[in-house]
Structure formats: C-alpha cells, structure tokens
C-alpha cells in the first residue's frame, strides 16, 4: 500500500490530475479509506511541493498545478468520504474584493487551504459583494474569505458584512479577511471573524474558526 501512497504523492507533486484520480480510484477499489489516500498521498505530495517552493526548486505554476490535482482527487473522493463517515475540513469561497486584480496571494491561500483538506471555491479577482454571497449560497460554504491589497477595495469587506446582516445571513457563514493593508483593528472594526497575515496562517485561521467558539475576531499574525 505504501507504493500507492508514494505514487499518489508523486502525481500530486507533478500536478498530474488525471493520474492522481486514477490512483485514487485504484485505492478505493482496493478498499483504502479516502482519508488515508488524502493524508498519506495527496497531502504528502503538496507538503513536498511547499518545501520545494521555499527552497526554489518549485515555483508558483507547479504549486498551482499540484493544488489543481489535489482538487480533482478530492472531487473524486468526496462521494466515498460520505460513506466512510469522513468529511472535508470545510468549504470556503475565496476571492479578492471588487477592483482588486492581484491574484498571486489569493492563489497561494487557495492552494494552502486545499492542502489542508478544505474544499476551496476560488472565485478569482475583482469579486463583487453580490457574487460572494451568491457563490457562498450556491456552494453551501462554511467560510467566505475576502482579500484586498488596497484599502479602496478593502471597504468592500465591510460592505459584505453589512449586506449579510441586512439579508439575515450573517450567522450562516464565517467571514475571514486578509491582504497587505488589512490590520487586526480593521478586522475587529468591521466585525469579521478572523484575520491572518500569511497564506500558511490562513489555514490555521480557517481551521480554528470552523471548530472554536469564538467570542471575538481571531487574529493570527
């Protein structure tokens, strides 16, 4: 079985979505539990990619392709996970606020969250408040993540929360914020559930807002 995990890890590392799904299928056929395939194969591959990224052996395209391969494998495994009584870490819709076209930080966060087992719906850049809410409803999300590299776009973080209160859906979703000019104070002022400074910290943030009973905004910096 360790050979299967090794091959699966390599398929994720190589960003080969087709092979990752094929190997996951053979694992399921052989009776391996989905969460074992994810933890010992997929997550291992992405963790190796993360190390390679930090050591200048892999770069953003490889990281993104690895994330895509992981997503394809998770999509395949999802129906079996229900039978196995396992569940993903949660569903998050992420994007940058209206007017903000910067995608690299967003893509890093989306990839890190996928690595950690979240189902990530990456909406991309320049997303309106209406689109965030519509996509959160459509995907039955647990968390909405909204980032901005500029304060003039960050205002839409506050608008999103206001709109959710107006529509009576504020308690349906956790809202986490991030981006260069975003501060802990801003996070608290607008009533968001949490803030993280880096992509890696965003994973810890999302895990904790999903599981902890927080009385105030969770700040990780």
């Amino acid at each position, binding site marked *: 079985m360790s050979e299967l995990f090794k091959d699966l890890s390599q398929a994720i590392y190589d960003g080969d979505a087709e092979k990752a799904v094929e190997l996951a299928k053979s694992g399921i056929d052989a009776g391996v539990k989905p969460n074992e395939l994810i933890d010992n194969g997929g997550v291992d591959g992405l963790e190796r990619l993360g190390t390679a990224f930090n050591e200048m052996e892999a770069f*953003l*395209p490889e990281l993104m392709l690895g994330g895509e391969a992981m997503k394809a494998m998770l999509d395949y495994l999802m129906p079996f996970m229900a039978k196995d009584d396992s569940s993903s870490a949660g569903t998050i819709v992420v994007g940058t606020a209206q007017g903000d076209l910067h995608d*690299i930080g967003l893509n890093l966060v989306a990839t890190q969250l996928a690595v950690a087992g979240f189902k990530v719906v990456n909406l991309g850049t*320049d997303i309106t408040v209406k689109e965030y809410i519509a996509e959160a409803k459509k995907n039955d999300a647990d968390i909405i993540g909204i980032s901005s590299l*500029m304060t*003039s*776009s960050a*205002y*839409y973080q506050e*608008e999103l929360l206001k709109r959710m209160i107006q529509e009576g859906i504020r308690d349906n979703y956790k809202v986490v914020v991030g981006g260069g000019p975003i501060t802990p104070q801003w996070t608290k002022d607008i009533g968001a559930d949490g803030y993280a400074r880096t992509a890696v910290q965003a994973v810890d943030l999302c895990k904790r807002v999903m599981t902890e009973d927080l009385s105030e905004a969770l700040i990780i910096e």
Partner: protein
Amino acid sequence: MASVKKIVQMMERVKDGPACTTADWDYKIVPGTVREMLKKYDLAKTYNPETPVNQDMELADRFFEAGLELAATIGLHCTDTETQIIFSKEEILEALRDAPSELVLGVGKDRRILKSRGVEDKVEPLYCTSLSIQIDEELYIPLVQGLVGRPNIDILQGPSIDTVFGIPAFADSPFETAAGLREAKLRAEALWRAGRPDMPQMCLSSSTTHFAFLSGYPMIHRPENPAIGIALQPAELKTNYSNFHKVLMVAGYGGILRSGVTSMIGGYSGPQEGTVIANIASDILQFALLGADISNSSMYDVRKNSACCRNALWAMSMSVQATSRNTHTILDKIINQSAGPCTKDILYTNMAGLVTTGVSGMELTTGPRSAGGAKRNHITPLEAYFSADVFKASAKLSLEEANELVLYGLTKYEDTVDNQPAGKSFYDCYDIDTLQPSDEWKRMDDEVREDLRNRGLSI
C-alpha cells in the same frame, strides 16, 4: 507615445488574437517557454550570489537575446478577452527603435531631461517620489509639500488617498472617480505651496481601477507640461481592458506613457534566471504593445516580498544591464522592500537597490516604497531625499565599486530581509508644521550617510 488610432488597432488585434485561457498561460505557456529559453541560451543556474551587481556583460547580452526571443515567441495575454497577442521579432525591434531615448519633462526651473543611459553611465538618473502609499486625506498637502521640498526630487507621483472628504473611496465606483478629482486638486495645492507648480508629474496614485485615472489625469496634464500616465498591467506578460482605458487617455491628450508590471521571482516564470528573461520580455513588450515612453517592469522575490534580497538584486542588475546595453529605451524599476521610516533598514535596503539599478543603467526610479507600501501613513520625506541622493550618486560608481557597496549593505539587513521593521508613521517621526524629521530619524539618516560616504558613495 502611440496614437489613439494605433492603440485602437492594437485593441482589435488583442480582441481577435488566438484564444488562450489564463490558466494555460499561467501554468503552461509562460513557465514552459521560459524553461525552453533557459535551456537554449544556457542560462539556468547562472545566478552568482557573490555579484549581486552583475559583472558579466556577455551574460547580460545572452539574457537579452533570451528575453527578446520569449517576447517574440509568446507575446502577451489579455485577461479580458482570453487571447494571445503575438508580435514578430522585426515588429518588436522596430518598436524598440521607435521608442524615445530622451524625454523633456516639466517647465522652467523644474525642467528635467530624462535621457537613456548605459551601464556605468555618468549621466545622473532621475528620481520620482513617492509610491502610492495610502495616507490620511488631511495629510496629503503637508506630506507632498515635504516630499518635493528638495530639488533632488525630480518628479512627483505622490501618495494615494482612499477617502474623499472623509467618505470611503470605494474602488471601481463613482467614489473612485471622485478620488481622482480630489487627488488632482490636492496635488496642485501642495505643489503651489512648495513653490514647484511646474514640476513634472506622474499620475494617478489613487487609481485602483481606471476610474480615478480617467477623472484625474486631464486635470494634471498640460500641453506644455505633459503628465506621465501610470498604466499598470495586471500581471507579468499580461494586459487587460482596464489598462487600455488609461493608455487611450494618455494617447488622446498627448501625454507620456509609463507602462509595466512587476515580475515575481518564484512566480509564473520560476527562478531568478527565468524571471530575468520574463522581465526583459515584459519591458520590451510595453513598447511593442502600447508604444510606451517608459517601461516600468519591476522585480521582486515573492517569498521574501523584497527586491533587495541578494538574488533579486542580481536579477534586477541583470535585467537592467541587458536592456540598457541592447536598446535605448527608458526604464523605471521600483525598489520593493518592507522596512519603514525611522529605521536604518530602509536606508540600507534602498541604498543596495538603487546602487544596483543605477550603475546598471536605469534612467528613472519611483520610490520609496516605505514599509512595503502596506502601512498607512508610513512614509516621510527624509527617506525620499536619501534615496534620491543615493540613486544619483550611483552614476559615479563602477560596477565593481557598486558590488562592494551592495555586499556591504547586505550585511546590514540580509538576515531580516523578509521581516523588516515597519518603523514609524509620518505623524510619529516628523513635525507636520515645520516639515522637519524627529531628532531620532535625522540622526539615523546622518549616521548612515556618513557610513556610506566612508565607503565611497558621494552623498
């Protein structure tokens, strides 16, 4: 600057170009072709940490050839139309020949000549301040008045505002349009108070999308003192419709176009060597796509959020040298770093970045990017004056002397380059009424200047 007609023709070419998804562009076309160029020109693993200021001119020329071939092979991608814009090598070379080698900016005592430079060029480069760091609206006039308070500041870009009369300036909305109008008015007032109403201007800082630009640019541009329009592309080797709005505006008014984008080491083009190739291609494609007057394609390492880590310095020196030696185009690369005002870190990191690019042949820089541009009100005139002096002094250095200075600078900040101190805000280290730095900040500036003078920098 290209005519409106040429820009419109280019837009049609963009719209009707070969289909290409952004995902294919990011994951396959850019990284794949960059890898091919690295192999074909034998450029992989050529980074030399001992020479953050590159000393090998044959290598720089090889990088230029690779960048030119990359540009002529894949061209650019438009994210709105999801198409590719292909240029022939001849077309690119013609655009480079047509690019201006000299621009006359400003009027009267503030007239400046922005002239093409080469490696180790003795002509002093020009300094534009500052980057579009967000500040409180009420701070705009005193801060800008201070920023342009010395003649070594050649061009004003200035900080940005994100409120209009205290009301949030929502991006991509009429509030942003209002911010453009407001910034233009505040600029005029600040320059009048500083006694420099005719100095060259680069604009517009508060333009998150194109709306503030469309409203503010016509208020700043004058036929006798054409404004430099900032048209930032969405990402490396990409363009979009929002940028074309700005470009058309500049072309229509007869202004000066500065266009480009930041290349990220570790990003889509891979390691520092790949990023140098993509950065060269980004620079030269600004001239082919838009008939730009100035290319503004900066670089930094995405892992360290800095252009002043050792490998990024090397990459910037290589890219500037390559383009300076092989074209007469005018380049403006920004020194990205994350230290803020009232720290010695910002002075040493800016010194390293500006000496690297200045001696390599860069004509213009815009800065400083105090506190990485991420901290509100974290910018003061003092680091702008320091940076301008250093950049101009780089014209007196040889490549070897510059390398020694940069290696020394690295000893001061390299260990903490990815987590530099944000320092203090304008409120906390400047007297806003007298526009003088605090004793603490002034002392730091004096000490670093003396240290660098002792090491051969004429500031």
